[in-house]
């Protein structure tokens, strides 16, 4: 879907590239044995290496390398069998060594791509420039004391993957779709939990604008550390509008780093290009080049889970469901797994309809995630089985599902306890039909007089007389026979 900004002098297109910092899921840090668990008491997960003590040396954590390679494979990217670590030098109180170990010239992962889906059903491919491993910094706490700042180094040295996109994004919606898709892939791979509110995924957004697709890129601004997808799309809109205004009033945009203030709905300058750090990158002499074997990469590849794109295609093919339903069901790995357990050897379409309908509605209403659902895949499946073998009808099933959420009973227990078995006894239905016809002679006359709609009234009355348990198809058939004679 195209997105343009109407300025006073014409139409503008936006150009966006994203740099995402994704915290690697690993037990210990990138170069030390300290724990990476979130939420520990300050400075309880800090090794002497993380604190930059004299004589301490980094040793690469193989699991973090494996996670980066898995991510690269998931992004269909080039895996560089030799990569290097560089030092990015700058002084800050949250950076104990006085430099961050990163990969500048030779990242572990090269070019890759992500396919994003947009709300109009179209798809687009966004290029990945690179992915590299680097250390996270610690955290400064300014609110503990009126005069002093405190430092928590628990996060210092935790592994991050910096994932850089090509400037392929053209709308705020695409930026959001890119981030959602990237997060989905990372979660499927188990390489990052993608929790933006805990800071384990953060985005730097590069924005520029231009007159049309034929014009070369203009100066961009980088908006640092945006911590939600909604804020990313807002920041792009606001920053692009700011730049259009500058260009149209005859000014020029300065290359700089900016901050997004969601409260005021504005971006503001953090530091200009002149004030930019000279990071003095150079190869870290404490670490040898990182050399990995193709064999090992192949093993990691063989161990990768099925990724969302492939899973969605398979769901459509294997279970005959729509692209839309398949997309909803693969959004989270847990949902997809749940669906597969329910759909396996059952009617996939009906399983999809129940899950995306009443089941999700019940979860939403009770504020639960699928992992916390009181109704497991086995119980939902058992309910579908009861519908399939005509033990209950669809209307009763809705009530059964409600009760399952409340009591955690099996559907059969509920059906038995409440006596909800579908009535398929012809005699019982016929008797109910006879009673309804006898008690509603006036309606019958109207119906025969041409008021066709009244047939539904008779069906409803019979269902009511059987407390909803009658088989609807049989009710229809018997009523037709009786009324039409």
């Amino acid at each position, binding site marked *: 879907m195209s997105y343009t900004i109407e300025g006073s002098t014409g139409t503008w297109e936006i150009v966006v590239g994203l740099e995402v910092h994704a915290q690697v899921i690993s037990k210990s840090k990138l170069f030390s044995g300290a724990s990476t668990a979130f939420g520990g008491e300050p400075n309880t997960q800090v090794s002497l290496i993380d604190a930059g003590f*004299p*004589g301490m040396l980094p040793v690469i954590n193989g699991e973090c390398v494996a996670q980066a390679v898995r991510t690269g494979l998931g992004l269909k990217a080039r895996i560089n069998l030799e990569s290097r670590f560089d030092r990015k030098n700058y*002084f800050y*109180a949250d950076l104990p060594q*006085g430099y961050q170990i990163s990969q500048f010239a030779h990242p572990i992962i090269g070019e890759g791509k992500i396919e994003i889906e947009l709300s109009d059903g179209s798809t687009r491919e966004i290029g990945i420039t690179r992915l590299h491993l680097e250390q996270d910094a610690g955290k400064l706490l300014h609110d503990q004391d009126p005069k002093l700042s405190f*430092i928590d180094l628990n996060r210092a040295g935790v592994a991050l993957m910096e994932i850089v996109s090509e400037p392929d994004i053209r709308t705020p919606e695409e930026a959001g779709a890119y981030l959602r898709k990237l997060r989905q892939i990372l979660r499927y791979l188990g390489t990052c939990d993608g929790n933006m509110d805990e800071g384990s995924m953060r985005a730097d957004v590069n924005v520029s604008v231009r007159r049309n697709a034929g014009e070369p890129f203009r100066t961009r601004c980088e908006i640092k550390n945006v911590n939600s997808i909604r804020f990313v799309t807002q920041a792009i809109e606001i920053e692009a509008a700011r730049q259009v205004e500058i260009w149209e009033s005859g000014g020029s945009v300065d290359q700089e780093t900016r901050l997004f203030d969601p409260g005021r709905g504005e971006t503001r300058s953090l530091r200009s290009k002149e004030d930019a750090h*000279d990071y003095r990158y*150079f190869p870290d002499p404490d*670490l040898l080049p990182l050399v990995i074997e193709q064999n090992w990469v192949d093993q990691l590849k063989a161990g990768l889970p099925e990724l969302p794109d492939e899973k969605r295609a398979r769901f459509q093919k294997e279970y005959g469901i729509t692209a839309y339903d398949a997309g909803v069901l693969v959004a989270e790995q847990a949902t997809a797994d749940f669906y597969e357990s329910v759909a396996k050897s059952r009617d996939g379409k009906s399983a999809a309809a129940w899950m995306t309908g009443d089941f999700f509605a019940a979860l939403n209403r009770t504020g639960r995630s699928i992992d916390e659902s009181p109704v497991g895949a086995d119980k939902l499946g058992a309910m579908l089985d009861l519908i399939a073998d005509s033990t209950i009808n669809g209307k009763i099933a809705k009530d059964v599902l409600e009760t399952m959420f409340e009591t955690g009973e099996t559907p059969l227990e509920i059906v038995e306890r409440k006596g909800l078995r579908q009535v398929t006894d012809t005699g019982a239905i016929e008797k109910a039909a006879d009673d309804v016809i006898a008690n509603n002679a006036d309606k019958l006359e109207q119906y025969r007089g041409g008021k066709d709609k009244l047939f539904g009234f008779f069906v409803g009355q019979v269902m009511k007389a059987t407390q909803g348990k009658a088989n609807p198809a049989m009710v229809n058939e018997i009523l037709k026979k009786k009324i039409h004679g």
Partner: protein
Amino acid sequence: MLTDLTIAQAAAGLRKRDFSATELTKAHISAIGQLNGRLNAYITVTADQAETAATRADKTLAAGDAPTLTGIPLGIKDLFCTNGVRTTAGSRILSNFVPPYESTVTANLLKNGAVFLGKTNLDEFAMGSANLTSAFGEVENPWHRSSDSTALVPGGSSGGSAAAVAAHIAMGATGTDTGGSIRQPAAYCGIVGLKPTYGRCSRWGTIAFASSLDQAGPMTRTVEDAAIMLQAMAGHDPKDSTSASIAVPDYRAATTRSLKGLRVGIPAEYRPDGMSEELLAVWQKGIDMLREAGCEIVDVSLPHTKYGLATYYIIAPAECSSNLARYDGIRFGVRAEGATSLDDLYEKSRHNGFGEEVRRRILVGTYVLSAGYYDAYYLKAQKVRTLIQRDFATAFEKVDVLLTPTAPTAAFGHNEKPDDPVQMYLNDIFTVPASMAGQPAMSVPVALDSRGLPLGLQLIGRHFDEETLIAAGAALEKSAAFSARPDLRAGAAA
């Protein structure tokens, strides 16, 4: 006198019960008490810990099967972090720093039974060639010219270690060598100094100067003692990614190895203009001694030698400018008072904490890594470094070991130091190339010059072939029969 023994002799004596480890340690502590006030070789003396360790050593010796260095008193360069013992790197900024950990090299020595007498003086952060940049004062060389008593420098940066060993107030000492910091002070003080192959000894827990060059090694009075100490210090360490996973051979056995057929290279480029006749003569004497021992002498060329010093003084400062960024007054070390902002805290702490030479090298290193200068300096230096490494690789296709002088001059006076820092850097001209290429190298004392000061020769070997250095060094030592001792030493002074 117990302080006159070599490590090998003392180890034998301890096992024969000729004396106890406690007696040996006390003799050294007492000598330190007499001499250190003048020499200033130790920054910190750990007399109590040493005596406790000696008592433990006596028990181990009594139980039998004690490791080689059990009860041997050593000095530890104050660049190795020692658990619970202040470690200063010769700098004001670490004057209050007590590490809660033990470096791998010193832990290896402790495991081997060694007794630590204390922490020896050094140029600040190992930056210097004369031990004149220490925040804890200059070290005096125990040697003096026969004509006068002018105080001379012990060389650097491991000047305290060299002086302590030469003055018999340590039986051996650890040093570290980045561009010559073991070999040059060993030559100035008339002792043996061995810089192993880069990666042979772990760098973990040793305060970094230039990570791609730093290497720990032994400083002793004999080649055999260097072999014994290196045996204990060396070995693969998973905590240091640049430490080599290569088995450590029996170094002591190499001291008696025959040199028959060993090819010794004499590099043409180690003969710069203005080199003293005296030094040339000592070098020739070394060549003759090795020829007599059965070696074949081969002329070789290391054509990029002349770029060694310039390259070194780009790469080493570049790495140090980054390595020393952690000394910011925040988490350990000395924090400046009265800072008004974070930047002010950095500036004050680092300005007050670092001496002039360290500040100079941080500035040079910051400059050569800066945007716009990186390619012209750092990148070009790395390329030249590759050429220097290739020089050695080519030479070692033809020869097994190289023989050169260790330093261009003998020790000079404290008041004779050149005003121009670049002149000072020239002290490292013969030692820097081997450092740049990671080759093992050793300085052996061979003769006294006409003024009565020791001169050393340097052997440079193939990667991880310290054994050939030790074999050739032992042969030189035997032929030279260098028995002169400095006037300031335990039992001789006072």
